[in-house]
């Protein structure tokens, strides 16, 4: 072993090693080429340019009509109703969802089974079906009576069709449906919070309700907000189904217009522009909320968080350790 001559390979390795030791300072190397990526990028660009050109040259596009309808009162009123309907059903959905989620987690079997049944029905049937059902509720229950059951005592009675016009029916359908989904999201959020948090709060003398409100829900929000953002965007688009029961939302109004003038494609483009604009705007409050409830969780926001923060820095945000917020 001691007598063996150094083989050529070890000698060359040694010379390499010494050569590497000599090289110091920044590395100047030939970068690796990616010809496949370049070819793919050029192909995509060609397809894009080609389809854009053919769309823009298509006489059926009718850009003047798009421009004409984009800010028409008919469209704008529809946008307002769509936004209002989305906001109202999301608010109802979220707060109702918290209640259903807490019921679902209750040790009382009646409450938890009731919550499960509710979720089962409203999550398990199509939203379109629920919309039509509420729209025609008058056919099912013609009269709503408040009184003592099994007697003829009536305190108050009303025609269902008068009590529930199309907009209320839409709100009921969207809100109840959203409640079922939100309940499951909130439940997942509550269950994601470590049991030790509840114990710590209890050991400090906090009541169960206060523990939920001050300790568990704020931490659950971190898990709840991203899927709720999705839900809000889905809801914004689902409001278009209201057109079936003749609401006054964006899609209903657009549909009404194109059934009269047959300019279907330009009007659909008008609607698409508005839906895209609204969903884009919605991502701003989501980013803000994620930031607000992400406080204190540094490790969990490495990749997406840093990307979000570069975006949100241009929109002025309250400072991370804002004392006013903590005082409220």
């Amino acid at each position, binding site marked *: 072993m001691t007598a063996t001559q150094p083989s050529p390979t070890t000698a060359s390795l040694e010379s390499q090693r010494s050569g590497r030791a000599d090289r110091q300072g920044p590395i100047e190397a030939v970068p690796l080429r990616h010809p496949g990526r370049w070819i793919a990028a050029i192909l995509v660009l060609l397809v894009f340019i080609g389809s854009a050109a053919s769309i823009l040259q298509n006489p059926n596009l009718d850009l003047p009509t798009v421009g004409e309808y984009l800010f028409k009162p008919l469209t704008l009123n529809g946008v307002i109703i769509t936004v209002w309907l989305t906001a109202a059903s999301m608010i109802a959905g979220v707060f109702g969802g918290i209640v259903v989620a807490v019921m679902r987690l209750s040790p009382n079997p009646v409450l938890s089974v009731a919550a499960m049944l509710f979720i089962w029905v409203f999550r398990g049937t199509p939203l379109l079906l629920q919309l039509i059902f509420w729209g025609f509720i008058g056919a099912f229950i013609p009269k709503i009576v408040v009184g003592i059951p099994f007697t003829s005592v009536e305190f108050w009675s009303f025609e269902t069709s008068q009590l529930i016009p199309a907009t209320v029916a839409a709100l009921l359908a969207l809100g109840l449906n959203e409640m079922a989904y939100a309940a499951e999201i909130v439940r997942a959020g509550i269950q994601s919070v*470590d049991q*030790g*948090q509840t*114990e*710590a*709060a*209890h*050991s*400090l*003398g*906090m*009541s*169960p309700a*206060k523990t939920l409100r*001050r*300790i568990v829900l*704020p*931490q659950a929000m971190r898990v709840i907000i991203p899927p709720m953002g999705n839900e809000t965007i889905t809801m914004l688009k689902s409001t278009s189904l209201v057109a079936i029961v003749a609401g006054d939302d964006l899609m209903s109004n657009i549909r009404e217009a194109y059934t009269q003038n047959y300019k279907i494609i330009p009007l659909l483009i008008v609607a698409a522009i508005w839906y895209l604009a609204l969903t884009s705007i919605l991502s701003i409050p989501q980013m803000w909320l994620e930031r607000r*409830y992400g*406080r*204190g*969780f*540094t*490790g969990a926001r490495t990749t997406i968080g840093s990307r979000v923060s570069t975006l949100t820095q241009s929109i002025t945000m309250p400072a991370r*350790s804002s004392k006013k917020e*903590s*005082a409220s």
Partner: protein
Amino acid sequence: MTAVVPQAAPAAATPHQPMVEAIEVHKRFGSLEVLNGVTMSVERGQVVCLLGPSGSGKSTLLRCINHLEKVDAGMIRVAGETVGYREKNGRLSELREKEVATQRRKVGMVFQRFNLFPHMTALENVMEAPTQVARRSNADARREAIDLLGQVGLADKAETYPAQLSGGQQQRVAIARALAMSPEVMLFDEPTSALDPELVGDVLDVMRALAENGMTMIVVTHEIGFAREVADVAVFMDGGVVVEQGDPRQVLMHPAEERTRSFLSKVL
């Protein structure tokens, strides 16, 4: 057989009232009997260290004192009050959740995994219970919280979130948080077991200072040195019963029971 020797015998006819008293406490999880008739008492101002192998029921006993677990048989009294129940005409009725919460204010608890509220700064963690539970004004609570953070050596970390603190710092914030409610007893559930070795000393120093100030403390720990040095009473538990208790020098240096001896030979 070896009852805890009270510091001073009751001179007058006034009934002697320990700070914490456990009488024949039983607790089972399913078929597993975790506490099998534990009787012990802790005097006001005493430091009691609970030692024993894992699964011996030390932590469960601690959690029963705070009513985080319900006892199945026997009873626990804190400052003369039955934990979790109301005694009326010889019958027990369960306390309402609000009343349990009120009882717990007398007992501070420090957890192995700290359990700080991650969405609040160190200062907000300490202020949370005084402002939300004791309804003290923000300014008062803030002043006291800053003072408490100073006592545990973390005055400069008031605005820091738990995730940015070391384990030892988090545990000291947790101690300050428990102290903020001015508890009469402090329970420590393996407070240094989740810490890197070099961080243990800071936490033990804070606990030592608390003991010197006369705080009643029940400490579940594997730190034999701390027990020997700080505890007034060492309690060795195994298999859900108290095997041996008494002066820590006696129990830890010259144990009478074989089970204690074999446990100590493993940890020392």
